[in-house]
């Protein structure tokens, strides 16, 4: 792959017809031989790490959470750091699928499917941490208000409870949204597939989709409605996660800036992850015509913008801890910068403050290798951000006698690496069994491009009615 590719304003490159788009997207699933060594390597490594996580969890359930590094005074450690990190990563998917849809950004079409999948898998990783940190995951239902024989309702004044609702709503809406979007594509797979097992599975998933205009009409209104529902979630979920800290009164946590700065950080980290996945996958599966350099360039720009907001947040934190005149606030900032975790703070500034500035240069934004490396810095930076916020404030609280130093154990590391494995496993499993690109939306896009006389007139037949362009596999090509 040549590192640098040309920019082109078209969202679908090359000579494509409805059929060629259809074949290209569906063949990844229907032709199980299309998967190459890189796929197998990623999948297997993910699978192995997932097994590792299984062992760690078993040991955790047997021994209790004492095997983690969390202990007085640092009652929160990697578990909550990883939780916030994963939840943040999920945000790009919702942003792309909901907000960009409402804003009629057609560049979302080729990336929304797997960004949404990424959201789901990231939330699945995130959810594990608080669940296991309860120590008794089998009692998790206690977190919901249900009529019980203990006469207990959860504490509605606790942001941790708000988290429960925010995340479970988020997971549900994202899953429904994702599934809804899949229905027409799955129906297309059902119709194309020759394998009876595939036909049965896809047939069941398609839920009787025929591509009738009444189907499309309902589909469109349901989709828009769900997009409207998800839009506030993009903002609310990470705001609420930030309340876990902001509502407490620990210096370094009690910051009113947290909600917007966490949300920006989430989108920032999310786009970094979308790019981390999109850059290799588009090369391996030769999807360059659909995920064009234009897409990549735009995603890099979103990263730059949100990265600047995040960096502005760091500056504000520094400024306000000085400006507050409060000795605890000032000390906390001093400890962050020059205390025992100083290394983490300056790494954070490097990753989230300095490195993203390279994205100002169009040459770097279109250099895939450079961009990939920057994305890794961003992911690391966002992880360090939570690390700095959580550990410094906890290990340097009001009582010097209870100060401490947080050291993770191998089980902390095992859990984290394990969730990375789980994410990879699910992601690459998804690439193999479901269409990674929104097939019918791409065809719709092509229709709109031809319709506008965009020079893409090589579709053998003249522009067809929009609905035919939509139709999952019937009509246009039989």
């Amino acid at each position: 792959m040549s590192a640098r590719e040309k920019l082109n304003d078209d969202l679908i490159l090359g000579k494509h017809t409805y059929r060629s788009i259809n074949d290209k997207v569906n063949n990844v699933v229907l032709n199980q031989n299309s998967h190459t060594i890189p796929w197998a390597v990623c999948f297997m490594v993910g699978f192995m790490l997932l097994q590792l996580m299984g062992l760690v969890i078993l040991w955790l359930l047997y021994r209790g959470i004492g095997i983690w590094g969390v202990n007085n005074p640092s009652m929160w450690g990697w578990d909550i750091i990883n939780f916030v990190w994963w939840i943040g990563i999920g945000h790009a998917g919702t942003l792309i699928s909901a907000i960009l849809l409402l804003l009629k950004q057609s560049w979302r079409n080729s990336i929304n499917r797997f960004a949404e999948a990424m959201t789901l898998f990231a939330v699945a990783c995130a959810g594990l941490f608080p669940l296991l940190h309860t120590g008794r995951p089998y009692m998790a239902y206690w977190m919901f208000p249900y009529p019980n024989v203990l006469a207990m309702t959860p504490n509605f004044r606790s942001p941790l409870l708000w988290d429960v609702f925010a995340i479970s709503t988020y997971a549900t809406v994202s899953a429904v949204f994702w599934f809804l979007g899949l229905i027409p594509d799955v129906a297309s797979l059902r119709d194309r597939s020759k394998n009876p097992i595939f036909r049965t599975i896809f047939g069941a998933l398609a839920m009787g989709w025929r591509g009738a205009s009444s189907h499309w009409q309902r589909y469109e209104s349901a989709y828009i409605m769900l997009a409207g529902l998800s839009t506030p979630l993009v903002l609310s979920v990470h705001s609420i996660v930030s309340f876990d800290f902001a509502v407490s009164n620990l210096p370094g946590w009690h910051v009113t800036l947290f909600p917007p700065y966490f949300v920006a950080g989430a989108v920032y980290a999310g786009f970094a992850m979308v790019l981390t996945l999109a850059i290799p996958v588009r090369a391996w599966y030769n999807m360059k015509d659909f995920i064009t350099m234009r897409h990549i360039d735009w995603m890099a720009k979103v990263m730059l913008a949100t990265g600047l907001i995040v960096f502005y947040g760091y500056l504000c934190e520094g400024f306000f801890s000085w400006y507050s005149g409060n000795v605890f606030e000032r000390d906390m900032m001093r400890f962050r910068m020059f205390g025992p975790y100083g290394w983490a703070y300056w790494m954070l500034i490097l990753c989230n403050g300095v490195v993203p500035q390279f994205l100002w240069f169009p040459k770097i934004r279109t250099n895939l290798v450079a961009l990939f490396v920057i994305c890794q810095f961003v992911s690391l930076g966002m992880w360090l951000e939570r690390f700095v916020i959580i550990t410094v404030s906890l290990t340097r609280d009001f009582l010097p006698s209870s100060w401490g130093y947080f050291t993770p154990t191998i089980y902390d590391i095992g859990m984290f690496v394990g969730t990375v494995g789980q994410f990879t496993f699910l992601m690459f499993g998804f690439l193999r069994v479901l269409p990674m690109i929104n097939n019918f939306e791409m065809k719709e896009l092509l229709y709109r491009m031809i319709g506008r006389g965009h020079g893409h007139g090589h579709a053998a037949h003249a522009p067809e009615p929009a609905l035919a362009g939509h139709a999952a596999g019937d009509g246009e090509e039989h």
Partner: protein
Amino acid sequence: MAQVFHPRANVLAKLSLILLATGPVLLLLIGTGVSRASHNTKAGIAADQPVPFSHEHHVSELGIDCRYCHSNVETSAHATVPPTETCMSCHSQIWTNSPLLEPIRQSYKTNTPVTWAQVNKVPEFVYFNHSIHIKRGLNCNICHGSVQQMQLAYKGKPFFMVWCLNCHRNPEKYVGDPDKVFSIYEKGQKGQDREYANMPAEERDILNVGEHTRSPEELAKGEEWVKKFNIKKKQLADCWICHR
């Protein structure tokens, strides 16, 4: 190629959606039912005892006071089940040949206690104390059901936390004269028909079913008792009262 699914299968698709929406509610209802069912709480289910000891016999018919056997109930956390010697105080004289009493005689001879199966039990993480409850005029039946009618002892009520709290939040609905805790069994004895007829409604309800909803006047009296006992209502439902 023909479709795998017939159009009729669409009904299944719709059904699955309905199930998805109602499923959680259904699960909740099932869970609610199962957790409260006596299979789970063991309420109303008699345990297998080495000797079929009948409270009805010894309390209602013979008129033995609870404290004769559960001697610690007024003074300690545990009511305690009586030792073999207590039974032998009578059964060394009467019914000495009853085969049902063989384990008691064996226990007496070999000086090993009878292993009664305990039916009323709170988990280890709950602290419970009988003496304070008896001193606040709470009758055994309020918590154990009508013991004097039991052929075999069984758990009268499931000890859910909500049940403990229901009283701890509103003790005025239950507290009363501590001197009357045991007298209701006397009045309820077989043959005491006149005294039974003169019993106040509250005592009769508690004797027969272990439950009574107080009238406004009775509640006002209850409030007085609460004041007299100096019960700190605000604290009584705090977690540390029972989870120490």
